[in-house]
Protein backbone atom coordinates (compact mmCIF):
# COMPACT_ATOMS: atom_id res chain seq x y z
CA UNK A 1 0.00 0.00 0.00
CA UNK A 2 1.62 3.22 -1.02
CA UNK A 3 1.66 6.30 1.12
CA UNK A 4 -0.89 7.80 -1.18
CA UNK A 5 -3.26 4.90 -0.63
CA UNK A 6 -2.82 5.26 3.08
CA UNK A 7 -3.79 8.88 2.86
CA UNK A 8 -6.87 8.07 0.85
CA UNK A 9 -7.97 5.00 2.66
CA UNK A 10 -7.11 5.78 6.22
CA UNK A 11 -7.95 9.44 5.87
CA UNK A 12 -4.73 10.39 7.58
CA UNK A 13 -2.18 12.84 6.26
CA UNK A 14 0.44 10.08 5.93
CA UNK A 15 2.51 11.45 8.77
CA UNK A 16 2.07 10.99 12.47
CA UNK A 17 1.85 13.68 15.12
CA UNK A 18 5.59 14.23 15.14
CA UNK A 19 5.63 14.65 11.42
CA UNK A 20 7.32 11.32 10.76
CA UNK A 21 6.04 9.24 7.88
CA UNK A 22 3.54 6.66 8.95
CA UNK A 23 4.56 3.09 8.83
CA UNK A 24 2.02 1.29 6.74
CA UNK A 25 -0.07 -0.66 9.21
CA UNK A 26 0.21 -4.34 8.45
CA UNK A 27 -2.96 -6.30 8.22
CA UNK A 28 -5.09 -3.42 7.05
CA UNK A 29 -7.00 -4.94 4.22
CA UNK A 30 -6.33 -3.40 0.86
CA UNK A 31 -9.48 -1.91 -0.64
CA UNK A 32 -10.99 -3.50 -3.68
CA UNK A 33 -7.67 -3.93 -5.42
CA UNK A 34 -6.31 -7.43 -5.64
CA UNK A 35 -4.56 -8.38 -2.44
CA UNK A 36 -2.51 -11.27 -3.64
CA UNK A 37 0.96 -11.23 -2.21
CA UNK A 38 3.87 -11.41 -4.53
CA UNK A 39 7.08 -13.30 -4.01
CA UNK A 40 10.22 -11.82 -5.46
CA UNK A 41 13.74 -13.03 -5.35
CA UNK A 42 16.75 -10.74 -4.87
CA UNK A 43 20.15 -12.29 -5.35
CA UNK A 44 22.31 -14.29 -4.88
CA UNK A 45 23.96 -12.36 -7.67
CA UNK A 46 22.65 -8.88 -7.27
CA UNK A 47 24.67 -5.68 -6.93
CA UNK A 48 22.64 -4.42 -3.98
CA UNK A 49 22.95 -7.41 -1.70
CA UNK A 50 26.63 -6.84 -0.90
CA UNK A 51 27.77 -10.23 -1.94
CA UNK A 52 25.95 -13.43 -2.52
CA UNK A 53 23.11 -12.95 -0.12
CA UNK A 54 19.76 -14.03 -1.41
CA UNK A 55 16.55 -12.51 -0.14
CA UNK A 56 13.14 -13.93 -0.90
CA UNK A 57 10.70 -11.14 -0.29
CA UNK A 58 6.97 -11.42 0.11
CA UNK A 59 5.40 -8.20 -1.05
CA UNK A 60 2.00 -6.66 -0.62
CA UNK A 61 2.08 -4.12 -3.39
CA UNK A 62 5.33 -2.41 -2.64
CA UNK A 63 5.32 -3.14 1.05
CA UNK A 64 7.52 -5.83 2.43
CA UNK A 65 5.49 -8.33 4.39
CA UNK A 66 8.26 -10.75 5.05
CA UNK A 67 11.88 -11.26 4.11
CA UNK A 68 13.44 -14.68 4.12
CA UNK A 69 17.21 -14.50 3.76
CA UNK A 70 18.82 -17.53 2.19
CA UNK A 71 22.43 -17.87 3.18
CA UNK A 72 25.23 -20.26 2.55
CA UNK A 73 26.11 -19.24 -0.97
CA UNK A 74 29.60 -18.56 0.26
CA UNK A 75 29.91 -21.33 2.79
CA UNK A 76 33.53 -22.37 2.58
CA UNK A 77 33.94 -24.65 5.56
CA UNK A 78 36.41 -22.50 7.50
CA UNK A 79 35.64 -24.11 10.83
CA UNK A 80 36.16 -27.58 9.43
CA UNK A 81 39.44 -26.56 7.83
CA UNK A 82 40.60 -25.16 11.15
CA UNK A 83 40.51 -28.65 12.65
CA UNK A 84 43.13 -29.66 10.12
CA UNK A 85 45.53 -26.79 10.65
CA UNK A 86 48.12 -25.77 13.21
CA UNK A 87 47.28 -22.63 15.14
CA UNK A 88 49.61 -20.49 13.09
CA UNK A 89 48.29 -22.02 9.89
CA UNK A 90 44.80 -20.86 10.75
CA UNK A 91 45.81 -17.22 10.63
CA UNK A 92 45.75 -17.07 6.81
CA UNK A 93 42.24 -18.47 6.98
CA UNK A 94 41.11 -15.66 9.26
CA UNK A 95 42.04 -13.10 6.60
CA UNK A 96 39.50 -14.59 4.34
CA UNK A 97 36.49 -14.65 6.64
CA UNK A 98 35.85 -10.95 7.01
CA UNK A 99 37.97 -9.80 4.11
CA UNK A 100 37.11 -6.17 4.64
CA UNK A 101 39.07 -6.02 7.88
CA UNK A 102 41.65 -8.79 7.63
CA UNK A 103 44.12 -7.42 10.15
CA UNK A 104 41.55 -7.20 12.92
CA UNK A 105 40.59 -10.82 12.33
CA UNK A 106 44.21 -11.86 12.58
CA UNK A 107 44.43 -10.09 15.91
CA UNK A 108 41.24 -11.72 17.18
CA UNK A 109 42.48 -15.19 16.44
CA UNK A 110 45.96 -14.58 17.82
CA UNK A 111 44.50 -13.24 21.07
CA UNK A 112 42.36 -16.33 21.51
CA UNK A 113 45.24 -18.69 20.81
CA UNK A 114 47.43 -16.77 23.24
CA UNK A 115 44.76 -16.89 25.91
CA UNK A 116 44.54 -20.63 25.38
CA UNK A 117 48.30 -21.05 25.66
CA UNK A 118 48.74 -18.49 28.43
CA UNK A 119 51.10 -16.24 26.49
CA UNK A 120 51.61 -12.57 27.32
CA UNK A 121 52.69 -10.49 24.36
CA UNK A 122 55.26 -7.70 24.36
CA UNK A 123 54.31 -4.02 24.79
CA UNK A 124 55.34 -3.11 21.25
CA UNK A 125 53.27 -5.93 19.85
CA UNK A 126 50.26 -4.75 21.84
CA UNK A 127 50.42 -1.29 20.35
CA UNK A 128 51.06 -2.61 16.85
CA UNK A 129 47.98 -4.77 17.15
CA UNK A 130 45.92 -1.77 18.18
CA UNK A 131 47.18 -0.02 15.06
CA UNK A 132 46.24 -3.04 12.97
CA UNK A 133 42.72 -3.14 14.44
CA UNK A 134 42.04 0.54 13.96
CA UNK A 135 43.38 0.59 10.42
CA UNK A 136 41.01 -2.25 9.67
CA UNK A 137 38.15 -0.35 11.21
CA UNK A 138 38.75 2.56 8.90
CA UNK A 139 39.00 0.53 5.70
CA UNK A 140 36.01 -1.57 6.59
CA UNK A 141 33.83 1.43 7.31
CA UNK A 142 35.07 3.00 4.09
CA UNK A 143 33.85 0.05 2.06
CA UNK A 144 30.57 0.20 3.89
CA UNK A 145 30.23 3.86 3.16
CA UNK A 146 31.14 3.48 -0.48
CA UNK A 147 28.86 0.57 -1.24
CA UNK A 148 25.96 1.93 0.78
CA UNK A 149 26.13 5.27 -0.93
CA UNK A 150 26.04 3.48 -4.29
CA UNK A 151 22.98 1.59 -3.12
CA UNK A 152 21.28 4.84 -2.26
CA UNK A 153 22.31 6.55 -5.46
CA UNK A 154 25.47 8.47 -4.66
CA UNK A 155 28.56 7.45 -6.56
CA UNK A 156 31.06 10.08 -5.48
CA UNK A 157 31.59 8.94 -1.88
CA UNK A 158 32.48 5.51 -3.25
CA UNK A 159 35.42 6.96 -5.13
CA UNK A 160 36.56 9.02 -2.16
CA UNK A 161 36.26 6.09 0.19
CA UNK A 162 38.22 3.82 -2.09
CA UNK A 163 40.92 6.42 -2.44
CA UNK A 164 41.38 6.33 1.33
CA UNK A 165 41.40 2.56 1.24
CA UNK A 166 44.17 2.59 -1.30
CA UNK A 167 46.23 4.70 1.05
CA UNK A 168 45.77 2.22 3.87
CA UNK A 169 46.39 -0.61 1.46
CA UNK A 170 49.75 0.94 0.68
CA UNK A 171 50.60 0.93 4.37
CA UNK A 172 49.36 -2.62 4.80
CA UNK A 173 51.40 -3.69 1.84
CA UNK A 174 54.44 -1.97 3.26
CA UNK A 175 54.02 -3.86 6.50
CA UNK A 176 52.84 -7.27 5.40
CA UNK A 177 53.54 -7.52 1.71
CA UNK A 178 49.90 -8.05 0.84
CA UNK A 179 47.14 -5.65 0.09
CA UNK A 180 44.27 -7.69 1.34
CA UNK A 181 45.26 -11.04 2.76
CA UNK A 182 47.61 -9.75 5.38
CA UNK A 183 48.10 -12.60 7.91
CA UNK A 184 49.83 -10.05 10.06
CA UNK A 185 49.85 -11.79 13.44
CA UNK A 186 51.48 -14.91 14.74
CA UNK A 187 50.75 -16.65 17.98
CA UNK A 188 52.96 -14.72 20.37
CA UNK A 189 53.77 -11.78 18.13
CA UNK A 190 53.56 -10.39 14.65
CA UNK A 191 54.81 -11.70 11.34
CA UNK A 192 57.14 -8.72 11.17
CA UNK A 193 57.89 -5.43 12.79
CA UNK A 194 56.70 -2.37 10.92
CA UNK A 195 59.18 -1.08 8.35
CA UNK A 196 60.94 2.25 8.78
CA UNK A 197 58.66 4.46 6.75
CA UNK A 198 55.51 3.00 8.14
CA UNK A 199 55.13 5.26 11.15
CA UNK A 200 55.70 8.39 9.10
CA UNK A 201 53.28 7.15 6.46
CA UNK A 202 50.58 6.37 8.98
CA UNK A 203 51.07 9.74 10.64
CA UNK A 204 50.58 11.40 7.33
CA UNK A 205 47.43 9.38 6.85
CA UNK A 206 45.99 10.28 10.24
CA UNK A 207 46.63 13.94 9.51
CA UNK A 208 44.93 13.95 6.14
CA UNK A 209 42.16 11.43 6.67
CA UNK A 210 39.83 13.76 8.65
CA UNK A 211 39.61 15.97 5.59
CA UNK A 212 38.07 13.20 3.53
CA UNK A 213 35.77 12.38 6.40
CA UNK A 214 34.52 15.92 6.58
CA UNK A 215 34.02 15.96 2.82
CA UNK A 216 31.91 12.83 3.02
CA UNK A 217 30.11 14.34 5.96
CA UNK A 218 29.37 17.47 3.96
CA UNK A 219 28.07 15.55 1.00
CA UNK A 220 25.89 13.05 2.84
CA UNK A 221 24.90 14.06 6.34
CA UNK A 222 22.53 16.84 5.38
CA UNK A 223 21.78 15.61 1.91
CA UNK A 224 18.02 15.57 1.43
CA UNK A 225 17.99 12.33 -0.52
CA UNK A 226 20.24 10.61 1.96
CA UNK A 227 18.30 11.82 4.96
CA UNK A 228 14.99 11.00 3.36
CA UNK A 229 15.98 7.48 2.54
CA UNK A 230 17.62 6.65 5.83
CA UNK A 231 15.87 8.43 8.65
CA UNK A 232 13.18 6.42 10.37
CA UNK A 233 13.98 3.37 8.28
CA UNK A 234 14.73 0.00 9.82
CA UNK A 235 14.32 1.06 13.41
CA UNK A 236 15.34 -1.29 16.17
CA UNK A 237 14.85 -0.40 19.81
CA UNK A 238 17.55 -1.05 22.35
CA UNK A 239 15.67 -3.97 23.89
CA UNK A 240 15.15 -5.59 20.51
CA UNK A 241 18.76 -5.07 19.57
CA UNK A 242 19.91 -6.80 22.74
CA UNK A 243 17.42 -9.60 22.35
CA UNK A 244 18.61 -10.19 18.80
CA UNK A 245 22.21 -10.36 20.07
CA UNK A 246 23.31 -7.55 17.81
CA UNK A 247 26.72 -6.06 18.32
CA UNK A 248 28.96 -3.32 17.08
CA UNK A 249 27.58 -0.23 15.36
CA UNK A 250 24.20 -1.91 14.98
CA UNK A 251 23.83 -2.24 18.73
CA UNK A 252 25.22 1.18 19.50
CA UNK A 253 23.04 2.93 16.95
CA UNK A 254 20.09 1.64 18.95
CA UNK A 255 21.38 3.44 22.00
CA UNK A 256 23.21 0.67 23.86
CA UNK A 257 26.64 1.92 24.82
CA UNK A 258 28.32 -1.43 24.65
CA UNK A 259 31.75 -1.57 23.15
CA UNK A 260 34.01 -4.54 23.81
CA UNK A 261 37.00 -2.22 23.76
CA UNK A 262 35.66 -0.39 26.80
CA UNK A 263 33.73 -3.08 28.58
CA UNK A 264 35.95 -6.12 28.18
CA UNK A 265 39.19 -4.40 27.32
CA UNK A 266 41.87 -6.25 25.43
CA UNK A 267 45.16 -4.88 24.12
CA UNK A 268 45.07 -2.15 26.81
CA UNK A 269 42.24 -0.34 25.07
CA UNK A 270 41.16 1.06 28.42
CA UNK A 271 44.23 3.29 28.40
CA UNK A 272 43.31 5.02 25.15
CA UNK A 273 41.19 8.09 25.11
CA UNK A 274 38.28 7.61 22.76
CA UNK A 275 34.51 7.85 22.84
CA UNK A 276 31.99 5.10 22.37
CA UNK A 277 29.69 6.43 19.70
CA UNK A 278 26.04 5.86 20.48
CA UNK A 279 23.01 6.58 18.35
CA UNK A 280 19.57 7.31 19.63
CA UNK A 281 16.95 6.29 17.09
CA UNK A 282 18.35 2.99 15.91
CA UNK A 283 17.56 3.70 12.27
CA UNK A 284 19.72 3.52 9.17
CA UNK A 285 20.73 7.15 9.50
CA UNK A 286 22.01 6.65 13.02
CA UNK A 287 24.01 3.65 11.91
CA UNK A 288 25.59 5.84 9.28
CA UNK A 289 26.40 8.52 11.84
CA UNK A 290 27.83 5.99 14.25
CA UNK A 291 30.11 4.49 11.62
CA UNK A 292 31.24 7.87 10.38
CA UNK A 293 32.09 9.02 13.87
CA UNK A 294 33.80 5.72 14.63
CA UNK A 295 36.16 6.45 11.79
CA UNK A 296 37.33 9.63 13.44
CA UNK A 297 37.56 7.90 16.80
CA UNK A 298 39.68 5.22 15.16
CA UNK A 299 41.82 7.98 13.78
CA UNK A 300 42.25 9.37 17.27
CA UNK A 301 43.27 5.98 18.61
CA UNK A 302 45.75 5.60 15.77
CA UNK A 303 47.37 8.92 16.66
CA UNK A 304 47.67 7.95 20.32
CA UNK A 305 49.05 4.56 19.45
CA UNK A 306 51.68 6.11 17.22
CA UNK A 307 52.66 8.47 19.99
CA UNK A 308 53.18 5.72 22.47
CA UNK A 309 54.67 3.04 20.22
CA UNK A 310 57.46 1.69 22.44
CA UNK A 311 60.71 0.25 21.23
CA UNK A 312 61.65 -3.31 21.93
CA UNK A 313 60.96 -6.71 20.47
CA UNK A 314 57.64 -7.52 18.81
CA UNK A 315 57.76 -11.22 19.48
CA UNK A 316 57.97 -12.98 22.79
CA UNK A 317 61.26 -14.66 23.54
CA UNK A 318 59.96 -18.24 23.80
CA UNK A 319 61.69 -20.25 21.05
CA UNK A 320 59.05 -22.98 21.24
CA UNK A 321 56.37 -20.60 20.04
CA UNK A 322 58.11 -18.09 17.82
CA UNK A 323 60.07 -19.13 14.76
CA UNK A 324 63.76 -18.20 14.93
CA UNK A 325 64.99 -15.77 12.31
CA UNK A 326 65.87 -17.47 9.07
CA UNK A 327 69.56 -16.67 9.33
CA UNK A 328 69.81 -18.38 12.71
CA UNK A 329 67.74 -21.34 11.63
CA UNK A 330 70.23 -21.92 8.84
CA UNK A 331 73.36 -21.70 10.97
CA UNK A 332 72.48 -22.68 14.49
CA UNK A 333 71.61 -26.30 15.25
CA UNK A 334 69.32 -25.52 18.15
CA UNK A 335 67.43 -22.85 16.28
CA UNK A 336 67.05 -25.22 13.38
CA UNK A 337 65.52 -27.88 15.57
CA UNK A 338 63.01 -25.42 16.97
CA UNK A 339 62.24 -24.27 13.46
CA UNK A 340 61.72 -27.83 12.31
CA UNK A 341 59.54 -28.76 15.24
CA UNK A 342 57.32 -25.72 14.84
CA UNK A 343 56.88 -26.18 11.15
CA UNK A 344 56.33 -29.94 11.26
CA UNK A 345 54.55 -30.38 14.57
CA UNK A 346 53.15 -26.96 15.30
CA UNK A 347 52.77 -25.31 18.66
CA UNK A 348 50.91 -27.47 21.14
CA UNK A 349 48.21 -25.88 23.25
CA UNK A 350 47.24 -27.19 26.68
CA UNK A 351 43.88 -28.89 27.19
CA UNK A 352 41.18 -26.30 27.67
CA UNK A 353 39.13 -23.76 25.86
CA UNK A 354 39.19 -20.02 25.41
CA UNK A 355 36.84 -17.42 24.06
CA UNK A 356 38.00 -13.96 23.10
CA UNK A 357 35.68 -11.35 21.71
CA UNK A 358 37.10 -8.30 20.03
CA UNK A 359 35.37 -5.25 18.70
CA UNK A 360 35.61 -5.70 14.96
CA UNK A 361 34.25 -3.08 12.59
CA UNK A 362 31.16 -5.22 12.11
CA UNK A 363 30.59 -6.06 15.75
CA UNK A 364 31.89 -8.50 18.27
CA UNK A 365 34.08 -11.03 16.55
CA UNK A 366 34.43 -13.97 18.89
CA UNK A 367 36.99 -16.70 18.54
CA UNK A 368 36.28 -19.82 20.53
CA UNK A 369 39.03 -22.39 20.58
CA UNK A 370 38.82 -25.82 22.15
CA UNK A 371 42.02 -27.78 22.50
CA UNK A 372 42.64 -31.38 23.48
CA UNK A 373 46.35 -30.86 23.95
CA UNK A 374 47.46 -31.31 20.35
CA UNK A 375 48.77 -28.72 17.94
CA UNK A 376 45.47 -28.49 16.09
CA UNK A 377 42.28 -27.21 17.69
CA UNK A 378 39.37 -29.57 18.23
CA UNK A 379 37.04 -26.77 17.39
CA UNK A 380 37.62 -23.35 16.00
CA UNK A 381 34.45 -21.39 16.21
CA UNK A 382 34.02 -17.91 14.83
CA UNK A 383 31.27 -15.87 16.40
CA UNK A 384 30.37 -14.02 13.25
CA UNK A 385 29.09 -10.52 14.02
CA UNK A 386 27.52 -9.81 10.68
CA UNK A 387 25.75 -13.17 10.58
CA UNK A 388 24.06 -12.38 13.86
CA UNK A 389 23.38 -8.78 12.89
CA UNK A 390 21.81 -9.94 9.66
CA UNK A 391 19.41 -12.19 11.53
CA UNK A 392 17.53 -9.07 12.60
CA UNK A 393 16.90 -8.10 8.97
CA UNK A 394 13.47 -9.75 8.68
CA UNK A 395 12.42 -7.94 11.82
CA UNK A 396 13.68 -4.58 10.61
CA UNK A 397 12.37 -4.76 7.07
CA UNK A 398 8.80 -5.89 7.67
CA UNK A 399 6.38 -3.11 6.87
CA UNK A 400 8.80 -0.99 4.92
CA UNK A 401 8.90 -0.38 1.21
CA UNK A 402 10.95 -2.58 -1.05
CA UNK A 403 13.40 0.22 -1.76
CA UNK A 404 13.91 0.68 1.98
CA UNK A 405 14.84 -2.98 2.22
CA UNK A 406 17.95 -2.19 0.20
CA UNK A 407 18.89 0.61 2.58
CA UNK A 408 18.24 -1.56 5.61
CA UNK A 409 20.21 -4.44 4.24
CA UNK A 410 23.07 -2.11 3.45
CA UNK A 411 22.99 -0.65 6.94
CA UNK A 412 23.68 -4.04 8.53
CA UNK A 413 27.15 -4.00 6.99
CA UNK A 414 27.41 -7.63 6.08
CA UNK A 415 30.33 -9.34 4.53
CA UNK A 416 29.31 -12.67 3.14
CA UNK A 417 32.63 -14.35 3.74
CA UNK A 418 31.92 -14.02 7.41
CA UNK A 419 28.17 -14.58 7.32
CA UNK A 420 28.59 -17.91 5.60
CA UNK A 421 32.12 -18.80 6.62
Amino acid at each position, binding site marked *: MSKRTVELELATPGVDARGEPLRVPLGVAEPDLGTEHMLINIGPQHPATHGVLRLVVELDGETVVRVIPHLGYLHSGFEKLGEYRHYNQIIPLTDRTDYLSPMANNVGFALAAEKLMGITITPRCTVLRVIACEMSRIISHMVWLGTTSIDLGAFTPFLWA*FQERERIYNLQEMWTGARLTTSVTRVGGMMADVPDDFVAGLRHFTRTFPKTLSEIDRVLTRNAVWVGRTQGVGVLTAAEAINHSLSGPMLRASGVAYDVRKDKPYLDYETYDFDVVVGEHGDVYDRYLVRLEECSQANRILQQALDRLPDGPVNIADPRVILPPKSRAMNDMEAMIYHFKQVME*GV*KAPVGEAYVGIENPKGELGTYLVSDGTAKPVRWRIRPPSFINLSALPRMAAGHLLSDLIAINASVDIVMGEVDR
Partner: protein
Amino acid sequence: MKHVIETKTVSGQSPNYLLAKFQDLVDWAVNSSRANSLWPMPFGTACCAIEFMATAASRYDFARFGMERQAFSPRQADVLICAGRLPFKLAPVIRRIYDQMPQPKWVISMGACASTGGIFDNYAMVQGIDTIVPVDVYVPGCPPRPEGLLYGVLLLHKKIKGESLFDHVPRREEQPLDDRGLRLPPGEIDEISEPFGNSVHQFRSA
Protein backbone atom coordinates in the same frame (compact mmCIF):
# COMPACT_ATOMS: atom_id res chain seq x y z
CA MET B 1 73.35 -28.97 -52.47
CA LYS B 2 71.70 -26.53 -54.71
CA HIS B 3 68.22 -25.27 -54.13
CA VAL B 4 66.04 -24.91 -57.10
CA ILE B 5 63.44 -22.30 -56.61
CA GLU B 6 60.47 -22.82 -58.76
CA THR B 7 58.78 -19.68 -59.98
CA LYS B 8 55.39 -19.34 -61.48
CA THR B 9 53.67 -16.46 -63.09
CA VAL B 10 50.18 -15.81 -61.82
CA SER B 11 47.80 -13.72 -63.77
CA GLY B 12 46.45 -11.39 -61.13
CA GLN B 13 45.53 -12.34 -57.58
CA SER B 14 43.66 -15.57 -56.88
CA PRO B 15 40.09 -15.08 -55.68
CA ASN B 16 40.98 -16.95 -52.44
CA TYR B 17 43.59 -14.38 -51.65
CA LEU B 18 41.10 -11.59 -51.94
CA LEU B 19 38.59 -13.42 -49.82
CA ALA B 20 41.19 -14.02 -47.16
CA LYS B 21 42.11 -10.36 -47.19
CA PHE B 22 38.50 -9.43 -46.82
CA GLN B 23 38.01 -11.88 -43.99
CA ASP B 24 41.02 -10.46 -42.22
CA LEU B 25 39.59 -7.02 -42.52
CA VAL B 26 36.25 -8.09 -41.12
CA ASP B 27 37.91 -10.00 -38.31
CA TRP B 28 40.05 -7.05 -37.47
CA ALA B 29 37.08 -4.72 -37.32
CA VAL B 30 34.88 -7.09 -35.36
CA ASN B 31 37.52 -8.26 -32.95
CA SER B 32 38.83 -4.80 -32.18
CA SER B 33 35.36 -3.61 -31.41
CA ARG B 34 34.70 -6.62 -29.25
CA ALA B 35 37.97 -6.53 -27.41
CA ASN B 36 37.96 -2.84 -26.73
CA SER B 37 34.50 -2.57 -25.31
CA LEU B 38 34.10 -5.62 -23.16
CA TRP B 39 31.21 -5.32 -20.77
CA PRO B 40 32.12 -7.28 -17.69
CA MET B 41 29.61 -9.14 -15.62
CA PRO B 42 31.16 -9.04 -12.15
CA PHE B 43 30.38 -12.28 -10.44
CA GLY B 44 32.09 -11.22 -7.26
CA THR B 45 31.68 -13.53 -4.31
CA ALA B 46 34.49 -13.18 -1.82
CA CYS B 47 37.75 -11.43 -1.08
CA CYS B 48 38.75 -11.26 -4.73
CA ALA B 49 35.65 -9.17 -5.37
CA ILE B 50 37.13 -6.49 -3.15
CA GLU B 51 40.20 -6.37 -5.34
CA PHE B 52 37.89 -6.36 -8.31
CA MET B 53 36.20 -3.30 -6.86
CA ALA B 54 39.58 -1.71 -6.30
CA THR B 55 40.35 -2.36 -9.96
CA ALA B 56 37.15 -0.62 -10.91
CA ALA B 57 37.73 2.34 -8.60
CA SER B 58 39.74 5.44 -9.26
CA ARG B 59 43.33 4.34 -9.00
CA TYR B 60 43.33 1.36 -11.34
CA ASP B 61 40.22 2.22 -13.30
CA PHE B 62 39.67 -0.55 -15.78
CA ALA B 63 37.47 1.73 -17.79
CA ARG B 64 40.72 2.61 -19.47
CA PHE B 65 40.59 -0.77 -21.13
CA GLY B 66 37.14 -0.41 -22.53
CA MET B 67 35.34 -1.85 -19.52
CA GLU B 68 33.57 1.34 -18.69
CA ARG B 69 30.20 -0.16 -18.19
CA GLN B 70 29.73 -2.96 -15.73
CA ALA B 71 26.81 -5.04 -16.78
CA PHE B 72 25.03 -6.27 -13.73
CA SER B 73 22.68 -8.20 -15.93
CA PRO B 74 24.16 -11.24 -17.62
CA ARG B 75 22.06 -10.59 -20.68
CA GLN B 76 24.07 -7.51 -21.53
CA ALA B 77 27.51 -8.83 -20.69
CA ASP B 78 30.43 -10.08 -22.72
CA VAL B 79 32.80 -11.36 -20.13
CA LEU B 80 31.99 -13.10 -16.89
CA ILE B 81 34.59 -12.31 -14.27
CA CYS B 82 34.30 -14.84 -11.49
CA ALA B 83 36.07 -13.12 -8.62
CA GLY B 84 36.19 -15.23 -5.52
CA ARG B 85 35.46 -18.67 -4.26
CA LEU B 86 32.63 -20.73 -5.59
CA PRO B 87 30.93 -23.11 -3.19
CA PHE B 88 28.78 -25.93 -4.50
CA LYS B 89 25.71 -24.04 -3.43
CA LEU B 90 26.60 -21.30 -5.88
CA ALA B 91 27.47 -23.64 -8.75
CA PRO B 92 24.02 -23.71 -10.37
CA VAL B 93 23.90 -19.94 -10.13
CA ILE B 94 27.07 -19.29 -12.07
CA ARG B 95 26.04 -21.88 -14.59
CA ARG B 96 22.73 -20.16 -15.10
CA ILE B 97 24.35 -16.76 -15.41
CA TYR B 98 26.74 -18.17 -17.96
CA ASP B 99 23.88 -19.69 -19.90
CA GLN B 100 22.04 -16.38 -19.88
CA MET B 101 24.89 -14.46 -21.41
CA PRO B 102 24.61 -13.95 -25.16
CA GLN B 103 27.33 -15.10 -27.52
CA PRO B 104 30.13 -14.18 -27.92
CA LYS B 105 31.07 -14.61 -24.30
CA TRP B 106 34.26 -15.13 -22.38
CA VAL B 107 35.08 -16.05 -18.81
CA ILE B 108 37.89 -14.81 -16.60
CA SER B 109 38.55 -16.81 -13.50
CA MET B 110 40.05 -14.43 -10.97
CA GLY B 111 41.99 -15.80 -8.04
CA ALA B 112 43.19 -19.12 -6.78
CA CYS B 113 39.79 -20.16 -5.47
CA ALA B 114 37.92 -19.67 -8.71
CA SER B 115 40.69 -21.35 -10.66
CA THR B 116 41.45 -24.33 -8.46
CA GLY B 117 39.62 -24.14 -5.17
CA GLY B 118 42.61 -22.43 -3.58
CA ILE B 119 43.14 -23.13 0.08
CA PHE B 120 39.65 -24.51 0.41
CA ASP B 121 40.04 -28.14 -0.50
CA ASN B 122 37.01 -29.26 1.44
CA TYR B 123 33.43 -30.43 1.28
CA ALA B 124 31.94 -27.08 0.36
CA MET B 125 34.02 -25.75 -2.48
CA VAL B 126 34.05 -26.33 -6.20
CA GLN B 127 37.62 -27.16 -7.14
CA GLY B 128 37.92 -24.80 -10.04
CA ILE B 129 35.08 -23.21 -11.96
CA ASP B 130 36.30 -24.87 -15.13
CA THR B 131 34.38 -27.94 -13.98
CA ILE B 132 31.25 -25.88 -14.49
CA VAL B 133 31.84 -23.24 -17.16
CA PRO B 134 34.60 -22.99 -19.78
CA VAL B 135 37.29 -20.52 -18.76
CA ASP B 136 39.39 -18.35 -21.08
CA VAL B 137 41.82 -16.63 -18.75
CA TYR B 138 42.97 -17.71 -15.31
CA VAL B 139 44.38 -14.96 -13.13
CA PRO B 140 46.49 -16.41 -10.33
CA GLY B 141 46.89 -14.87 -6.92
CA CYS B 142 45.14 -14.81 -3.62
CA PRO B 143 43.87 -12.23 -4.32
CA PRO B 144 45.42 -11.17 -7.61
CA ARG B 145 46.58 -7.59 -7.52
CA PRO B 146 44.60 -5.16 -9.67
CA GLU B 147 47.54 -5.12 -12.04
CA GLY B 148 47.17 -8.88 -12.31
CA LEU B 149 43.55 -8.62 -13.24
CA LEU B 150 44.32 -5.92 -15.78
CA TYR B 151 46.97 -8.14 -17.27
CA GLY B 152 44.41 -10.92 -17.50
CA VAL B 153 42.04 -8.57 -19.28
CA LEU B 154 44.76 -7.63 -21.73
CA LEU B 155 45.45 -11.30 -22.35
CA LEU B 156 41.79 -11.73 -23.09
CA HIS B 157 42.01 -8.85 -25.56
CA LYS B 158 44.82 -10.69 -27.28
CA LYS B 159 42.83 -13.88 -27.37
CA ILE B 160 39.81 -12.15 -28.81
CA LYS B 161 41.90 -10.48 -31.48
CA GLY B 162 43.17 -13.86 -32.55
CA GLU B 163 39.71 -15.27 -33.09
CA SER B 164 38.08 -15.40 -36.47
CA LEU B 165 34.48 -15.22 -37.46
CA PHE B 166 35.11 -17.60 -40.30
CA ASP B 167 36.46 -20.73 -38.71
CA HIS B 168 34.00 -22.71 -36.77
CA VAL B 169 35.50 -22.87 -33.34
CA PRO B 170 33.28 -24.89 -31.11
CA ARG B 171 33.34 -22.32 -28.32
CA ARG B 172 31.23 -19.99 -30.39
CA GLU B 173 28.41 -22.44 -29.94
CA GLU B 174 26.49 -22.90 -26.73
CA GLN B 175 27.87 -25.70 -24.65
CA PRO B 176 24.99 -27.06 -22.68
CA LEU B 177 25.43 -29.57 -19.89
CA ASP B 178 25.38 -33.16 -21.08
CA ASP B 179 22.68 -35.63 -20.14
CA ARG B 180 24.47 -36.43 -16.88
CA GLY B 181 24.10 -32.77 -16.00
CA LEU B 182 27.86 -32.18 -16.20
CA ARG B 183 30.09 -30.11 -18.40
CA LEU B 184 33.01 -32.53 -18.35
CA PRO B 185 33.14 -36.30 -17.99
CA PRO B 186 33.11 -37.34 -14.32
CA GLY B 187 36.60 -38.80 -14.51
CA GLU B 188 37.97 -35.52 -15.72
CA ILE B 189 36.26 -33.60 -12.93
CA ASP B 190 37.72 -35.97 -10.37
CA GLU B 191 41.13 -35.52 -11.90
CA ILE B 192 40.92 -31.73 -11.97
CA SER B 193 39.73 -31.71 -8.38
CA GLU B 194 42.44 -33.89 -6.97
CA PRO B 195 44.32 -32.37 -4.04
CA PHE B 196 47.67 -30.91 -4.89
CA GLY B 197 50.33 -28.86 -3.19
CA ASN B 198 49.80 -28.25 0.48
CA SER B 199 46.26 -29.52 0.55
CA VAL B 200 47.64 -33.05 0.18
CA HIS B 201 48.76 -32.76 3.78
CA GLN B 202 45.49 -32.13 5.50
CA PHE B 203 45.28 -34.39 8.51
CA ARG B 204 43.35 -33.91 11.63
CA SER B 205 45.94 -35.38 13.95
CA ALA B 206 49.00 -33.30 14.58
